[in-house]
């Protein structure tokens, strides 16, 4: 930013000796405007830059990859397995630890609250498109040495080193699966609530993802909690750090807060309808009435 500041100072200094900027003496940047009219004379007349006949004039360009009769490159090799089923594969857009640290440092994320997809999307800097096969965020290890925050975070995919980095600081990480419809509700809860639809029930992971989310090594949400605490110790020994005792932590309640496997929002259960205008929660009959009605709502939408 410093160079911008410097150039601004220079420009402002220059303006002092220039005539007053007025409506009559300003003009757009050169070549920024495209003339919609076709010239008629020497420089842009004749064919108007479209060439003589053919695709240039008629805009009937050949299809992409067509090599005017040659065996096209994309058909020349009979088998490309590495893209097989690419349109069906789950994508996990990356979120680096450095980015996360910046979001925390700039108060875009409150470290005193558990972090999930909704929190990340509410920062305004990250976005998910569940409709285009994006199934959540993966936490990558860029900036791992600078990560200093103690957080409780839930992502959809994380490497072992990332898990170690978070647990070293006394934080908790879980990997959890969300189906696209649930994710759609999480990306923009306000929009979902305004539709008046009940909160959907989170589906269980598909067959090929069960193994990942049931593994304690990956801190999967379907794993046995005791296995996870064992794996925490194993990882601490492997990476050589002392595991902070989260039981003694003042934020213990926050750190252990976890969603149910069928739950989408903290404090809100599937089947409930949220009325934003009247600030009410309409619960379905199957669930018992809770006294802390308003509190639960606050947790869910914050």
């Amino acid at each position, binding site marked *: 930013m410093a160079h911008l*500041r410097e150039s601004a100072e220079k420009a402002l*200094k220059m*303006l*002092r000796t220039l005539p007053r*900027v007025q*409506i009559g003496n*300003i003009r*757009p940047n050169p070549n920024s405007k495209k003339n919609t009219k076709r010239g008629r004379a020497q420089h842009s007349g004749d064919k108007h830059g479209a060439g003589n006949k053919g695709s240039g004039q008629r805009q009937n360009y050949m299809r992409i990859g067509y090599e005017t009769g040659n065996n096209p490159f994309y058909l020349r090799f009979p088998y490309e397995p590495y893209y097989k089923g690419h349109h069906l594969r789950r994508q996990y857009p990356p979120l680096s630890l450095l980015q996360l640290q910046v979001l925390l440092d700039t108060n875009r994320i409150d470290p005193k609250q558990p972090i999930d997809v909704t929190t990340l999307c509410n920062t*305004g800097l990250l976005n998910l498109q569940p409709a285009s096969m994006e199934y959540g965020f993966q936490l990558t290890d860029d900036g791992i040495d600078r990560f200093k925050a103690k957080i409780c975070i839930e992502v959809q995919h994380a490497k072992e080193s990332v898990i170690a980095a978070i647990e070293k600081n006394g934080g908790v990480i879980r990997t959890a699966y969300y189906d696209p419809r649930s994710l759609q509700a999480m990306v923009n809860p306000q929009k979902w609530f305004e539709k008046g639809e009940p909160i959907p029930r989170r589906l269980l992971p598909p067959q090929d993802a069960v193994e990942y989310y049931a593994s304690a090594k990956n801190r999967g949400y379907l794993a046995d909690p005791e296995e996870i605490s064992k794996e925490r110790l194993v990882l601490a020994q492997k990476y050589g750090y002392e595991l902070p005792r989260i039981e003694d932590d003042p934020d213990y309640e926050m750190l252990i807060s976890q969603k149910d496997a069928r739950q989408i929002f903290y404090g809100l259960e599937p089947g409930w309808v949220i009325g934003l205008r009247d600030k009410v929660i309409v619960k379905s009959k199957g669930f018992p009435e809770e006294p802390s009605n308003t509190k639960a709502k606050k947790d869910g939408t914050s």
Partner: protein
Amino acid sequence: MLNLLNKTKCILIPNLRKTASRATHDVVKESSSEVAVSKTTTAPLILPQNWPQYEPMNRAVSRQVWIENIDDVPERKVGIIELHPDVFATQPRVDVIQENIEWQRKYRYVSFAHTKTRAEVRGGGRKPWPQKGMGRARHGSIRSPLFRGGGVAHGPRSPTTHFYMLPFYKRVMGLTATLSVKLAQDDLHVIDTVDVPTQDPQFIKELIKERNWGPSVLIVDRDDIFPENISYATDALSYVNLMPSYGLNTYSMLKHDTLVLTVNAVKHIEERLLYQLHRTDAIKKQGKFKLDQV
């Protein structure tokens, strides 16, 4: 360089304030003597701004401007105010200012130029002469565009709107750039209030002449209801206009030679623009403009 930038406006650098260059000394002396002779006994208005959320990256580049009086024709320095560099000393993007001017002209412009097509011109239903055998060119209607008195092909049709929206942050940048340009060219003045003693336009005329403002002056205050005196005094002067700070726009600022802001207006403009520059849901403002959006 900063001293060059500021003849009457010096930069506040706390450590160097006492050891500033001679130019600054002169200004200080001048102002202090003037304050001494002035009849009023009120303390000078020293307003170092304390932007709680939006602290500038470098405090030293924030601008300082004299607060002037408007209750008397001769100039008296009432105090000093600090201005945020992100609003009052940004990159003077003249091209963005131009885009704003063009947008402000166009978005409300509806062209009523109108021509009739061959179908709309009266008559011309029958074939003027047979297709063959006359030795004349073939024609089907006397109102074809080829005919005198015929319809116009591809002529202007009324009403044609020229509405479009400039991207939101270009509009914000237009405001900050214009304010910066005005300040850099000594065309921005800050006054304490808009209370003038008389309803006489002659007072305003003399004031403008004495202060070397103008000829055209835009006076901006926080409120949209101005005191009676200044309203009457400026009413007859077409080149002196009053505007609330929420109505501040690039076109009006550039249309007037001198921009005069009250202290309240400065604070309001600064607060609003800094909010827009730093808001976290900025991505929502950058979407495509829809007519029914809030």
